[in-house]
Structures are given as structure tokens and as C-alpha cells.
């Protein structure tokens, strides 16, 4: 029987992507705990395995062996489907991400669009889970998630549109190829296209924090206000899957930032480009995300709305106009 090698390749990549997402979700928890501990002058996990490296495994076993509680009064379908709606799109997004010249599951011409399309489903998952929980704290959290979504996606997408205007393509592979050859070629420092490029990166990064519900924009789960927000009624693996989805989304966000602004797999000095550089940049961004979480208190959601509508959106639109003018002139 003849099997198309493309199918085998896709299957291998699919397994690889899921494994990568799951491994990241598990070990980012470890990284988060270790990093938080060192910021707070503690040691962090250290008992299970060397440096506590087996801790995620044990946590996973604990979560999986817990009873799956579906509280009385919840909408059973929405309640069960919501964690999957958060997890699956995150894994799907990995399909289009080029980790190196050759390491990409599916090189799509609309790769960027696919990622943002899937990223929006994440919000839907949180909203449905919260609504299906029939818990007042969860519903407040859902309302916050939606208003937050409207606020941060506009500056983010305007920034991305600016970038697409410069690169002229939505193919992630081509976007990286254009930036190869050293850090002065990266979009972050592409000052001839727009002098505001570093600011655009900052806007993108802030919006990414909001998109992934990370501190200081973690209003959706705000544990000191809403107990656990959308996750209040979830326990065991329902919560675990939500959690994995959240971390997978952080990885996606950091990857997209790496591809769009930091030259993907390019080496800063133009030597030995490869997947290792992609991972170094990506994990550096993730490290920063965690660092921010354990440093800053939470804003309020109207704080985020003010930041978005009064600062980020005007700047990103200004950048858009400036870039298009410069593209026209030069």
C-alpha cells in the first residue's frame, strides 16, 4: 500500500507539536514556580527529582487522578467543552509556526491570519466555560474577558497590519527570511520602514500579555477579587487543560513576537542560524512574561481599557499612517 509521504510527515509533525505544547505547558509551570521563588528569595520546588524537575510530572498525575467534578446546575456541555476550546486552538496555531528554515508543519501563505483567528477562539472558550459554570464570579470574569478582548485586539492587529505592510506577506516563513543576516535586519530595528518599530514591538508585547491573560492584565482570574474567575468551578483535569491552554498560548504569543520582530531563527550576528536561536528568543520572552507577573500588581480592567483606547490604539494608528507614508515616499 502506498502512503503519501506528506501525510506521514504531517502526522509526525502533529505528534511533535502536541508533545511540544504539552511539554512546554508542564515545564513552564516548573519555570514559573522556580522563577517566582527566586524573585521572592525562596528556593522553589526541589524535592521531586533534581532541582524539582519531576515536579510537573507529579502535578500532572495528581491532576489526572482527581475526580472530574461537574457541579450541579452547570451547563454540562459548555462546561466540558470550554477547556478543550482553549487547548485545541492553541495547539492548532503551532502548525503554522516555523521554528527554523525546515522545521515547520505546514507553511501557509496566510499563516499570520490563521494564528490570530485561532487566538480569538481562546476568548470564546473562557467565555463559554465561565457562562456554563453558572457562577457569579465566573460570569463577572467572562464579562471582563470580552471587554478586554475588544480593547487589546485592536492595537495588536493594527500593529500586525503595519508589519504586513512592510513585509508584504502573511507567510511566517517569508517574514523571517526577510529578516535574516543579523540583528540590524530584524523588524524590531527596521527604522527605515518606520522609526516607531521598537514602540510597535512594545505595543505588541503588552497586547500579548493581555491576550494570554497574564499579569498585570490577569483580570479574568484575579484571585483576590473573583476567587478564580472563569475557573472557579473547575477542578482536576478540567482546570489542568485550561492551564495547559494558557501556557500554550503564552508560547504562541512569544513565538509570534519572535517571528515578527526578532528575526525568528536568525542569529543576532548572522552566524549559525537555526532552531536554537528561535528557542532562545522565545524562552527569553516567556521568561520576561513570568518576570513581569511576579513583579507588578494587577491593573483594573478599566485601567487596561484606558491604556488601550487612550494610548496603545492612537500610537499604533499613528505608526500605521507613518509607515504607509514612508512606504509611499521611499
Amino acid at each position, binding site marked *: 500500500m502506498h502512503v503519501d509521504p506528506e501525510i506521514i510527515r504531517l502526522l509526525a509533525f502533529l505528534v511533535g507539536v502536541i508533545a511540544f505544547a504539552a511539554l512546554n505547558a508542564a515545564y513552564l509551570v516548573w519555570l514559573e514556580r522556580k522563577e*517566582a521563588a527566586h*524573585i*521572592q*528569595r*525562596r528556593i522553589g520546588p526541589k524535592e521531586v527529582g533534581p532541582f524539582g524537575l519531576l515536579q510537573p510530572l507529579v502535578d500532572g498525575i495528581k491532576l489526572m487522578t482527581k475526580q472530574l467534578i461537574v457541579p450541579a*446546575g452547570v451547563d454540562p456541555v459548555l462546561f466540558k467543552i470550554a477547556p478543550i476550546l482553549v487547548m485545541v486552538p492553541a495547539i492548532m496555531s503551532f502548525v503554522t509556526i516555523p521554528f527554523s528554515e525546515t522545521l515547520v508543519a505546514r507553511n501557509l501563505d496566510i499563516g499570520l491570519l490563521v494564528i490570530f483567528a485561532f487566538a480569538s477562539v481562546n476568548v470564546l472558550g473562557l467565555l463559554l466555560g465561565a457562562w456554563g459554570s*453558572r457562577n*457569579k*464570579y465566573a*460570569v*463577572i470574569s467572562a*464579562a*471582563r474577558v470580552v471587554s478586554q478582548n475588544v480593547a487589546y485586539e485592536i492595537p495588536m492587529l493594527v500593529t500586525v497590519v503595519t508589519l504586513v505592510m512592510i513585509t508584504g506577506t502573511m507567510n511566517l516563513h517569508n517574514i523571517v527570511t526577510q529578516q535574516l543576516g543579523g540583528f540590524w535586519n530584524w523588524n524590531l530595528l527596521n527604522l527605515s520602514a518606520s522609526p516607531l518599530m521598537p514602540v510597535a514591538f512594545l505595543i505588541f508585547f503588552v497586547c500579548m500579555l493581555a491576550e494570554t491573560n497574564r*499579569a*498585570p492584565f*490577569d*483580570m479574568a482570574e*484575579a*484571585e*483576590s*477579587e*473573583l*476567587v478564580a474567575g472563569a475557573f472557579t468551578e473547575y477542578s482536576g483535569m478540567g482546570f489542568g487543560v485550561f492551564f495547559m491552554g494558557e501556557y500554550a498560548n503564552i508560547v504562541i504569543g512569544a513565538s509570534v513576537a519572535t517571528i515578527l520582530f526578532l528575526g525568528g531563527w536568525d542569529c543576532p550576528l548572522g552566524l549559525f542560524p537555526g532552531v536554537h536561536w528561535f528557542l532562545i528568543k522565545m524562552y527569553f520572552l516567556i521568561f520576561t512574561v513570568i518576570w513581569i507577573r*511576579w*513583579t*507588578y*500588581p*494587577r*491593573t*483594573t*480592567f*478599566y*485601567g487596561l481599557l484606558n491604556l488601550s483606547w487612550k494610548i496603545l490604539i492612537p500610537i499604533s494608528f499613528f505608526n500605521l499612517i507613518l509607515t504607509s507614508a514612508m512606504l509611499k515616499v521611499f
Partner: protein
Amino acid sequence: MSAFAKSEANETFVLNLGPQHPATHGVLRVKLTMDGEYIVEAEPVLGYIHRMHEKMGENRTWAQFLPNTGRMDYLHALAYNHGYVSVVERAAGIEVPERAEYLRVITAELNRVSSHLLWFGAFILDLGGFSPLLYAFDDREHILDLLESVTGSRLTYCYFRFGGVYNDIDDNFVPGTRAFIKRLRERMPMYHNLVTKNIILMKRLQEVGPISAEMCRKYGATGPVCRGSGINFDVRKHEPYSVYPEFDFDVPVYDQCDSMARYMVRMDEIEQSLRIIEQGLDKLPEGPVMAEKVPKIIKPAKGDYYHAVETARGSFGVRVVSDGSNTPYRLKLRSPTFSNLSLFGEACQGMLLPDALALMGSLDLVIPEIDR
């Protein structure tokens, strides 16, 4: 399910905050009537940890009630010790040696610093910042070690006795305390740089959670809450007790009336308390720590006595009525947080939930002390 199905014409719903909720720091329950995320009405519901301390006082001898005082406000237990022993000493006419009074002031002020440090960490935790809590606990640990060496316990102190304190300090206490003062003074600028000047914190506290001076008077709010509203009232200054008149310290007063003002009052109070402790260590006289002629069984003369002290949360007053027997006829405890919490319902009207919880955090509630 029903709560959503039959929302009424005015579209409000009731949110039950507590008695188990991360922001209420204990078993406080607040019944919130909400319009979306705006608070229409807030009603604190008390009594989940009521232990009838006042009634217990009437059923045991004067001395037997002493340990109870440390179990009301477990964060500033020594001030509660101080309030109760002072009123009994006043009733029974017991003279306290000067060294004992100095030790009382030094340890009570150390305890005040530890209480404010814990509040500092817990308040930032309410605002979603986790890390400062562990730094504050690190500093607080030094105080607990110092007080443990003197009082024998780490939280629910019962160190003061009628006529003095039960134990003199050891040789390590004075150098240890001086080292701690030096350490905390070095760390306070760090707290101010990293936390107070943080832009997110400033946005969340400044001009948020207004409590007017009028409202403070109306509800009898005392302590940092009223001093953050521009009322210069501190029992240590205005109704001096113990040896406080001999110390040179300022009462920090801010008149912005917002959560930031209350935050700043407490942060400044830590520094003022350090000044008091330092002066106390300098002036500490030699001598006995216990009055010599204290009767084994205390029977104060018939009468009605009141004494107030300044705790970390405000003015704590004890009123005792003695009928001349070995048990109090009536014991009334006026706890500061009860009054401070009472204004929450009025103050948080029309506020958003996160801001109201920041306001609640700035009141520095200790629930066992509200319920008693």
C-alpha cells in the same frame, strides 16, 4: 441558576463575598448588591468567629482574662495586653516600675511594626502583587524572633502582667533590636522604590476609595484610617498613657482621604515606631520589671473604669465595671476595626469591585477582633 433567571427590572444581583474569600482575610462576609461590576449596596455580615470574649471576661478572675486579650487582634496582641492591664492597674491602683513601662512600649511598638509589615504584604497581595508579601514576612520574622525570646510566644502574646511584665529581657535583645532597626531602615527605601512608586499601584490607590473626615467621625473610625483622612488623632499623643509622653515621635497625617493616604500613614508609622523603639532602648532604665506589692488576688474597688490604647488599627478601649469582687462585673471592649469596617458599606457605594476590595484592604481588617 435562579439568580440569573429572575433578575429584576433594576438588574441588580447579590454577590456573596465570603465568609470564605481570598480578599476578606478571614471569615468576614459581605453581602454585595451589584449592578454589573458596580456596587450598589454593601452589607458586612459579622459573627462567624464570635467567641464572646466580653462574657468570658465576666466569668473568670481578672488575671485569667489576660490570655484572651492576645487572641482578639492576633497581629498586635501586645497593645491589647496593654489596654487591659492598664485599665486593671488604674482600677486597683497598682504602680508600675519604670523599666516595665519602657519594656511594654518597646515590645508593643515592635509588635506594631510587625503588624504593619504583615498588612503591607497582604494589602499588595489584595492588589495582585504576590512578591512583596514574602519580603515583608522576611522582615517580620526578625521581630517574631526578638519577641519570642522575650515573651515566649510568637503570635498570641501574653507578656504584660498587672504591675509590670512577667520576664526581663535577655542580653541579646537590645543588640538584636538595634540590628533589626538598622536593617529595616535600609529596607524601607527599597519598599518605597519598588512598591510605593510603582505606577500601577499609584493608579490603583490614588484618588480611589475616598473616606471623608466626616465619615470617619460618623462611624468612629480611628487609627490610620482617620489619619489618612486628615484627622490628627493618636491616643499615644492625645490621651497619653504609659511612658509615651517621654518619647519624641510624629503622628503621620495625610489629608488626601484615598487608599494611598492610608497606605502612606502606615508606611510612615513603621518609621516612627522605629524611632520610638530606638529612643526606648537608649533610655531604658535599670530596675525591677514587676511591682513588688501586687496582691495575689486582685479585687479592684467598686467603680467604672476606662482606658484606651493606640493599636496598629486604631483606638482600642477597655471599660471595666468592678463590684469589688475577684471577677469583673462588666467588661466592654471597644475594638477599632469594628468601627473601621462599619464605614465600608457607605464608602464603597458606587465603586467597582476591584477598587472596593482595595479600599477594604486599606482598612486593615482583623476579623477575630471585629467579632471578639
